[in-house]
Structure formats: C-alpha cells, structure tokens
C-alpha cells in the first residue's frame, strides 16, 4: 500500500480551503484600504478586480458550455486509427 500524502487527508484539504477563503477576504480588504490609482471610473468600484474576475470566469464557462451544446462530439469523431 502506498503511503498517504499530506494532501490526501480531508482535514488538510479543508484547511487549505479555509486558508484560500481567508486570502480572498484579506486581498479584498487590502484592496479597499490601498490607493489603487484607477485609470477608469469602473476600477474605483468596490472590489472591482475581485467581482470582475469572478463574473468574467463564470461568463466564460457559461459561454463554453453553450458552445459545447452545439460542437461537442465523442473523441472518436474523426475515427483515426493509431497505426
């Protein structure tokens, strides 16, 4: 039997999740406190980069899923023999 890795234990994964969420809160807080020299008005909106990053990614996943509805095929579609 292989020895289990530190990352295999659920409680460590949970710890990483907590650290990650903590980092999210922290970085938004720092962003709110620091002067960020915005170039555009929209940058001055609270936590702009945070919500914009999240929304942009969610939108891209939705668009990708939309494309998938039309364009997804089994990976044997081109039926190439590997000879």
């Amino acid at each position, binding site marked *: 039997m292989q020895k289990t890795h530190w990352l*295999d234990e659920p409680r460590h994964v949970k710890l990483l999740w907590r650290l990650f969420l903590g980092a999210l809160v922290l970085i938004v807080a720092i962003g709110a406190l*620091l002067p960020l020299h915005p170039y555009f008005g929209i940058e001055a909106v609270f936590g702009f980069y945070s919500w914009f990053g999240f929304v942009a990614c969610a939108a891209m996943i939705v668009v990708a899923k939309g494309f998938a509805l039309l364009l997804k095929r089994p990976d044997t579609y081109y039926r190439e023999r*590997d000879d």
Partner: protein
Amino acid sequence: MTDSVLHPGLVLIAGALVLPWLRGHLRTAAVLLLPLLALSLVWQVDGAVWQVRFLDYTLTPLQGDKLSRLFATVFALMAAGGGWFALRQKSRVELPAAFVYAGSAIGVALAGDLVTMFVFWELMVVGSTLVLWSNGSGKSYRASLRYLMIHLLGGMILFAGITGHIAQTGSVDFTRIALDSPAQWLILIGFLVNAGAPPLSAWLPDAYPEASWSGAVFLSAFTTKAAVYVLMRGFPGTELLIWIGLLMVFYGIVYALLENDMRRILAYSIVNQVGFMVAGIGIGTEMALNGAAAHAFTHIIYKALLLMSAGSVLYMTQRRKCSELGGLFHSMPVSTICGIIGALAISSFPLTSGFVSKSMISQAAADGHLLTVWLLLTAGSAGVFLHAGIKFPWFVFFQKDSGLRPSDPPASMRWAMIFFAFLCIAIGIWAEPLYALLPYAVTYVPYTWAHVVTQLQLLLFSGLAFFALLPYLQRTLTITLDTDWVWRKVLRAVATLIARIMGAVQAMIRRGAQRASSSVLTLVDSQYGVDSSFARTWSIRGMALWVLVLLLCYLLLYYT
C-alpha cells in the same frame, strides 16, 4: 559592416545536418552547445551585416536590431532548453528537424528583407512538419499532412503578397508595411495564418498534440512567435489586430475549457497567449510593443515548461487525456512543481515572468483610454488562470486519484524543466535584464502595490470561480469541433463528392462510347458481316453476266 560574422540560424541548421551521425556524449555536447554558439553569434549581429545582390535587388540576409535580437535570443535559448529536454528522444529525425526549425526561426528574426524572410519562413514549415512526422504514428503522420497543407496555403498567400508588394514598391526591405493594396493584405493574412488567428487557427491544436513528448515543446515556441515578430515589424498599430487578438484570446479560453487532451489544452492556450501579443501589436504604442515583445519572450519559456511538464507525464504514463490522469503529484513532485510554476507564470502571478510582461499590454490599453479593450484584456487575463493556470495542473496532477504512480522522468528531462522554471521565476523577480532587451526604453514599473493587489484579486477570484463551478468543468471523453472540421469533414466530403461525380461522368462517357461503338459495329456488321449484302456469295454465272453487261455499257459509252 563585417562579413566575418557567421549566421547564427545557418550555424544551427548546418549543425542539424551533422547531428544524426553523432552518438553518446558527442551528441549531447552538440545538442547543448550548438544553440549556445548560435546565441553568442546573435549578439554580434548589429545593423546590416550581410548584403548580397540578387536579380535587381540588394538582399540583407543578416541584419540585427534590438527587436530581432530579442526574438533570435529567445529562439536560441529555446533550442538549448528543448534540446536538453529531448536528449532521450529515440527518434533520429526529431532533434535535427527541431534544430532546422529553430535555426530558420532565428533566420526569420534576423532577415533584413522580405525575400530572405520568406525563405526561412518556408524552411520553418519543413522543420516543423518533420518534427511532427518523426513521432512515427499514423495519427501524427496524418496530422502532419494537414499541418503542411495549411502552411503551404499560408505560404502561397504570403508569397503572392510579397511579390505584389515588391512589384509595387520596388523595394525588398522588410520595414513597416502600409495596408494600401491587396498585396499588403495578403502579406498580413499570410502572417496571421502562422500566428494561429481564426479562421484557420485549428491547424495548431490539431497538429501540436500529435507530436512526440519532446516534439510539442519545440513546436510551441517558433511558428507562432516568429509570426508575432513579423507582425510587430510589419504591421504595428494596425487597429484590426487589436480585435483579431482579442478574438484569439477568448477563442483559446473557450476551447481550452472544453478540452480533455492535456496538450491540446496547452495548444489552445498558445492561441490565447498569442492573442494578447497580437492585441498589443494592434495597440501599437511603445509600451504596447514592448509588452508584446516581452510577452513573446516570457511566453516561449513558460509554455515550453508547461509542455515539458505535460511531456513528462506522457513519457512516463503514455496517457494524454485528463479523464485518465490525476493524482500524479504523489509520485511526480518535480513535474508537478515545474508544471505549477509554468501555470503561475502563464497566469501572470506576481513573482513570475508573466506578471512583468503581459501587464505592459494592459497598461498600454489603459494609457490609451481604450476601455473596452482594457476590460476584455482583463477578462482574458482572468480566463488564462481559469483554462491553463488551474485547469492544467488540477486535472493532470490533482483532481481524483487515477491510481497511477509513475516516477518523475529521467534526469535530462527533470533538469531542463528546472532550468526553465528557474527562468520563469528569475525574470519575474528581476525583470531589468529582459527590459533592457526590449525594442524601446522601458519606463514601466511592474511591482507597485496597486498592481500586485489588483492582480491577486483578479486571479484569486478566478480561482474561486474555477472551484465553485468545477462540476461544470469535469472532463468527458469528447472533443469540440473546430474549424478543422471544415477541411477534415466538409472539404473531404466535397472531394469525395467531386470524385463521385467525376466517376459518374467517366462511367457515362464510357457507356456512351461503348454504345456508339457497338452501334457502329452493328452497322458495319449488317453491311459487311457474314450474311450481309456485301458478303453474300454470288453465282459465277450471274457474275459473268454482270461483267458482260458492264463491258457492253463501257463499249457503248466509248463510241458515243
């Protein structure tokens, strides 16, 4: 002008021709030293070094300025790192082909005129096709033919453009090209085909993942970045390029998100990254061009690193689908860490090379008050983390445990990865040497609190989006149709249809001819056949009588 300077590209190409006959340590030494020799030669090229008369033109096959030296430098560096990684490659063709490929890419970067540029441009096609071909499987052979087909088409378009341009302007100089007639448009299209711009973009994700574990590392570096170089030299500030670039950014992301093949994810992400560079060239300010050039430099290194990491996985497991991988961090720590460093660099994480290069392009958009462009570039940056920065390492090295426990790859592969991972971080921490190589003076300061914090916000929340929406990203045994569908299915169907129509026409003509010939034969047969009137047997008496009649008639006619 000194004629004594050797051409670094030709040195590499000449070396490639000797390479197949070398064995053991001699081969290793040649593989590592040839690119370094080329690199040292690149730095002796300043101004027009070689000039020759050809037909009515003065060609400048070897010319260097800051921009061309920057690209030639990273091409040589890439040949060294890729060669190191590929030392264990059993194919006797791949490494020499890769060196021809790298040498001709250097040739493109150092070409002072359009004719020389075109010659090296086409030589790159030969080298890269051989790299693909040398993988030896039927699949890679067919992919290499499709690859070749698209590049020959692109080459033809480019050739038509260049000849038209030379005929119009009377000059072969490779300088800025104004888009004022179809010839210049053809040149632009020819360049964009190699950059991986839609609609022909599918050649890239179709072909690159079919190369060997080491071949894909070379392929990722030269063709698209040589195209970035020529676009930067020929078409800086062409607004259309901003939109083409942004299209490439999002096309790359969407397709990479849906992809299951680990190296095809990275192939789509090449298109995505080149999109940032093309957009930068379109913006065209000094800041934007510096950003595009710097990004090409750092991109070659971290993309090669990512493909080395994927190549190591392929080498050790013979598997390439995300759905069959996972949990490899247990037994491949070096590949995992190097893959993560490459992934952080492509995502422009602070302290990696991507952070100090890509941000200049966004900065240029902000300086130019291009709000839409800037928003799209920012969304694209978030998407890079999503499709390459997390997706690649997550699905290959983590996610569900596949139960595979391959060890890290052999030393040559490990050290090549470590070397490139080191470069990714070193450039990220100490950007000045890279900035000093850029075509224009750099006033940009990457490490400000505002930049670090906003970038971390963007990336960390993209990460949150990835894990929050992970159920929608689970890999399935599917592909997503791309434009190669047009030439693999539609054009193939058209070709089959044409062949069928031609066959039918041929059969019709054959049948018609047969019918005509048989009716002629029947006619002949009816007149001259066995029982026909001409072949009837006549009695001797009858014959004698008719001869008598004829002679009498003759006699009568004679005397009248």
